[in-house]
């Protein structure tokens, strides 16, 4: 890792924290409210959650870049590493491992052992197809779009659905070319 980047733990330490239960319960009640508002249309709620995540990601990337002195990533592999190790650690307090790269290096999986937003949650029968943590996927999409990478992300394995770990697939669609005449590296 480049020395200018700093580790996730180092960046996690001075950031203001809140009680994780408060966060989990807030997210939970928000999902409940979305379900009520959309009259139990699970697909619509999934889309909404992802859109909300997108809006969060778009704003979060600036804070991330400001708090860490991350330099420009040379390729998607590095991006995925930074997202998993630094980004997730800094904002969620958990680290993910990057795995399952495809041949091109354009698709990978982020494996999260535990996901703090799903503490205490058990999906009832009628909501089995709910992508409860799809907000996280939206955050990745929004944040990376602001650094000129169009990605797609979705859950492959979900502990809420009975899997061992949480696996999020990240696929790079395209890298939008910079239009700025100056370099981002300072």
């Amino acid at each position, binding site marked *: 890792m480049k020395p200018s980047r700093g580790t996730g733990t180092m960046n996690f330490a001075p950031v203001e924290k809140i009680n994780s239960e408060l966060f989990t*319960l807030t997210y939970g009640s928000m999902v409940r409210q979305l379900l009520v508002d959309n009259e139990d249309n699970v697909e619509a709620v999934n889309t909404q959650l992802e859109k909300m995540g997108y809006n969060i990601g778009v704003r979060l990337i600036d804070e991330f870049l400001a708090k860490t002195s991350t330099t420009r990533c040379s390729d998607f592999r590095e991006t995925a590493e930074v997202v998993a190790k630094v980004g997730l650690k800094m904002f969620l307090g958990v680290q993910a491992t990057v795995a399952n790269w495809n041949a091109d290096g354009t698709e990978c999986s982020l494996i999260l052992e535990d996901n703090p937003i799903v503490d205490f949650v058990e999906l009832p029968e009628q909501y089995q197809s709910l992508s409860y943590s799809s907000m996280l996927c939206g955050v990745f999409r929004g944040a990376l779009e602001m650094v000129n990478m169009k990605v797609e992300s979705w859950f492959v394995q979900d502990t809420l659905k009975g899997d061992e770990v949480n696996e999020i697939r990240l696929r790079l669609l395209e890298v939008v070319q910079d239009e700025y005449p100056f370099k981002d590296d300072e």
Partner: protein
Amino acid sequence: MIVSMAVVGPANSPLFIHTISPEEDPLNFHYIIHCALDVLDERLNTKSKTPGGNDPNLGLIYPTEDYRVYGYVTNTKVKFFIIVDEIETKMSDIREIFRRFHLAYVDAVSNPFHLQGHALASKSFEARVRSLAAIRL
């Protein structure tokens, strides 16, 4: 040995009843808990005079010929019952089991999909209660 564990809501509606012994009719335990509720309510009303910290443990509230019922009430009027069939049971063990029962209940209720006042449908809660009930006293 613990034969039954139950949670009753603030409006005295049963939220969760778990019975162990297969030979005994589970409905019997429903009746026992129902009667224990009355005793517990009476105990609550008389105790309300005392100032200072309310101990949630109410101890032995209803001895029948075969069983003894222990009660525990939270400040939100959620009631927990443990029914045992032995004569010699240590209060400290019962206290410990109630404490863990309460913690399991809190986790189950924190599920955003749990509807307040409805029966507890959480599988993990059931599993935890089952393992608690299996503790030898």
